[in-house]
């Protein structure tokens, strides 16, 4: 009888354990296949360091995977560490999309090396006028993705999924999400048009939504192209 009880308890325990594991992560997400913190960290490292090496980025930086549910990723100017939270990774559907986040943050980290005293004060313009640096990081992020063999259209897909749409940007640290996506689209259009011509994200539901919501902005870009103007388009 005792043996039966012990066996039953063991069976219950082993039966329950996988159910906890499966609730920890969504299997549909790319990082979901990895169970331990170490595996997830390795996966983030493999993408991050691939971008660094492929782009010959000589500034040192490292990547930290955090299991927090915060929907964010950031780079620190002090330690040049790039932290990516599980909350934002849960939004990704492909490695390209994780690469988009990391490429953007790598660009910020590179900026932290510029200026006097090894970039000690490089953070100040980022604090005072952050939006310009966000645009810069987006564009450089596209370059980094392409050189590392990732599809830059994933950056638009990722932005469309994650970023909220503010009313005005003048009080915000980041540009309007629609504006950011339009600038990234324009950058890809002018520099890497192959990715739009042969667009593997064409049928992606988030990209379709971007096409729907960016009609006015793309109309502005079309006017710019037709008039062969070099002026910066003010997207909405």
């Amino acid at each position: 009888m005792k043996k039966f009880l012990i066996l039953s308890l063991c069976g219950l325990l082993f039966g329950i354990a996988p159910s906890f594991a499966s609730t920890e992560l969504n299997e549909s997400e790319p990082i979901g296949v990895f169970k331990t913190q170490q595996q997830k960290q390795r996966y983030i490292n493999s993408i991050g360091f691939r971008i660094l090496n492929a782009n010959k980025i000589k500034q040192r930086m490292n990547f930290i995977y955090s299991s927090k549910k915060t929907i964010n990723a950031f780079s620190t100017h002090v330690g040049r560490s790039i932290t990516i939270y599980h909350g934002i990774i849960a939004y990704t559907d492909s490695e390209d999309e994780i690469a988009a986040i990391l490429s953007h943050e790598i660009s910020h980290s590179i900026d932290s090396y510029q200026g006097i005293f090894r970039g000690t004060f490089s953070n100040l313009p980022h604090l005072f006028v952050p939006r310009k640096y966000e645009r810069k990081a987006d564009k450089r992020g596209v370059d980094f993705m392409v050189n590392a063999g990732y599809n830059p259209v994933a950056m638009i897909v990722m932005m469309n999924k994650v970023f909220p749409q503010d009313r005005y940007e003048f009080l915000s640290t980041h540009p309007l999400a629609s504006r950011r996506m339009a600038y990234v689209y324009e950058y890809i259009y002018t520099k890497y048009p192959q990715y739009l011509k042969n667009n593997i994200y064409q049928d992606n539901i988030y990209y379709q939504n971007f096409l729907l919501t960016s009609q006015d902005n793309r109309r502005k870009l079309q006017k710019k192209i037709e008039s062969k103007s070099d002026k910066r388009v003010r997207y909405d």
Partner: protein
Amino acid sequence: MIRILLAAIILAGLPCFANNEYSPELFRDELVETTLKNVSDIYPAPNLNYNYDDSEIKGGAEVPLVHYKPLKMRDHLVETTLKDVSGEYPEANLVYDYSNIRFVPLKIRFLEHITTKKTNNFEGQIVKFVVTEDIFDGKTKLLSGGTYGTARIETLMARGAMGEPADIIISKFDVEGLDKKKIDGLIVRRGANLALLAGALKYSIGTVFPGTGYLFMLIKGGQAKIKTDEIFELKYLP
């Protein structure tokens, strides 16, 4: 005796709990029941095969942009203006070997003045430069001075308030006779970063004379300039 009494109380109380079962009467929508008698129960078919065909974008004509056709949304801008563009993706730099640290200096000078001031310079612009000195790999001459090459302005960021400096980043160097993949380097030119000065003045004087600190926010950072007589050194990894 006490046990019998307790049992009797419990048994007597059970029907009370049974009667207290929560079963509210459902509210009915009389408006629907009376006015929608003849309406079918079948739900309309979902519109999953949508097409917001933006082919009407061209010309900005006042036409409805939403057409419901069994097609996916297409990018008219790409379809019309990128007809001649190859769909082949650029080659990624994934086969690298950074074990070799030997390099040959490649000195260049731009043929035009590049600045963030109001000029004709823009992002994506291809600028020309000239190689100023002969390039030797040991005793082998790889390239003679005076050879022209091209580069691309990747970033051209205007200066801003609160001492924010302007920024120029140039890359994608290409010189005839050299393997462009072996050219290593990036030209980054930044204007004077006056953010510290502007911040210090804003908070120090602004604290002593309240309200005046905001004036120092108008301090702009320096312009970034690249003059035609400046020589930049890149690395060529033979």
